[in-house]
């Protein structure tokens, strides 16, 4: 099996998995969209691999593989930074909710006590 066929199969499988994950509602479209673009791009670049070589050449990479590694690595660095932002946001929301739950809990308890007193 040629290298090209293997890459093509992998890209198609990835695309299929993304679609399936959306269908099963395991990921939101909001987050799946990026992955869809990535997998479509992988399929296009596998089929029209001269495009890949030309782009690598344009940016001055001697080997197309180096270009791929470089691009992937850069993407992942930014992605993890984005993920950290996302994580912090979730964390903050979580904390805020915990505080609110605590406050509401106390308020419910106080209201219950007040009600019981009024009953008596």
């Amino acid at each position: 099996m040629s290298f090209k066929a293997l890459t093509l199969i992998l890209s198609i499988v990835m695309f299929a998995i993304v679609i399936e994950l959306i269908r099963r509602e395991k990921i939101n479209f909001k987050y799946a969209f990026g992955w869809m673009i990535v997998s479509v791009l992988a399929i296009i670049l596998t089929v029209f691999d001269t495009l890949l070589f030309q782009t690598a050449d344009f940016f001055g990479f001697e080997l197309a593989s180096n270009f791929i590694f470089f691009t992937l690595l850069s993407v992942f660095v930014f992605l993890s930074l984005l993920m950290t932002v996302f994580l912090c946001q979730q964390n903050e929301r979580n904390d805020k909710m915990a505080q609110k739950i605590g406050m509401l809990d106390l308020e419910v308890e106080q209201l219950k006590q007040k009600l019981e007193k009024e009953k008596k």
Partner: protein
Amino acid sequence: MNQSSKKILIIIPAYNEEGNIVKTIDELVSLQLPLTILVVNDGSKDQTALEAKKTGVQVLSLPFNLGIGGAVQTGFKYAYQHHFDVAVQVDGDCQHDVHFLKKLMDPVLQGEVDMTIGSRFIPPFTGYQSSFIRRIGINFFAGLISWLTDSKVTDPTSGFRVFNRKLIKVFADYYPSDFPEPEAIVIARRYHAKIREVPVEMRERIFGNSSIRYLKTLYYMIKVTFAILLDKIKTTKVHQDVI
């Protein structure tokens, strides 16, 4: 508004303090001041909430542990929502001698300053002054904060503090999380708060461990230094909806 009609909330953040919490509350109650006491039980794994409830004070239990910053901030949110004029932070571990509370509150109640900090390093009191290693850290932050904020601070890690309504609002909206005390001073100064230190005596903890252990001191120093320096480049926000 005159002094006596001001509503005062005592915020006691407590994490696994079943051995100390009742004593802290009893000491506060015995002062016979017009105070509302709120224990913020920070997801304790022991009987802190139950012990505190027995004394009849308000106990706000967080569903899981948020850390000292999150717990104290909950107190500020409560104070803001229930229209308290003054908030007092007292640790739940009996370390703070609450007999100094009135002296600590007076400058804020009289509107002279926005915030007071109980300092164990100002004469005439020479009670418990923390371990040697921690004193190095405290001195370092005292220097750093004094320099950055242009106000003399000797005990930046002291958690025995009084805040007025202005700062209650600021801290209800944002309060630093991990080791919040030194950073909170810088934030208060960013909002042009007037801060005064009042000499107090502190005691050694009776039960349990303080949340800052020796090995953590270095990490603590580096982290807080960064946090303080980064605070300097933040801008002052206009707060609207804080709860």
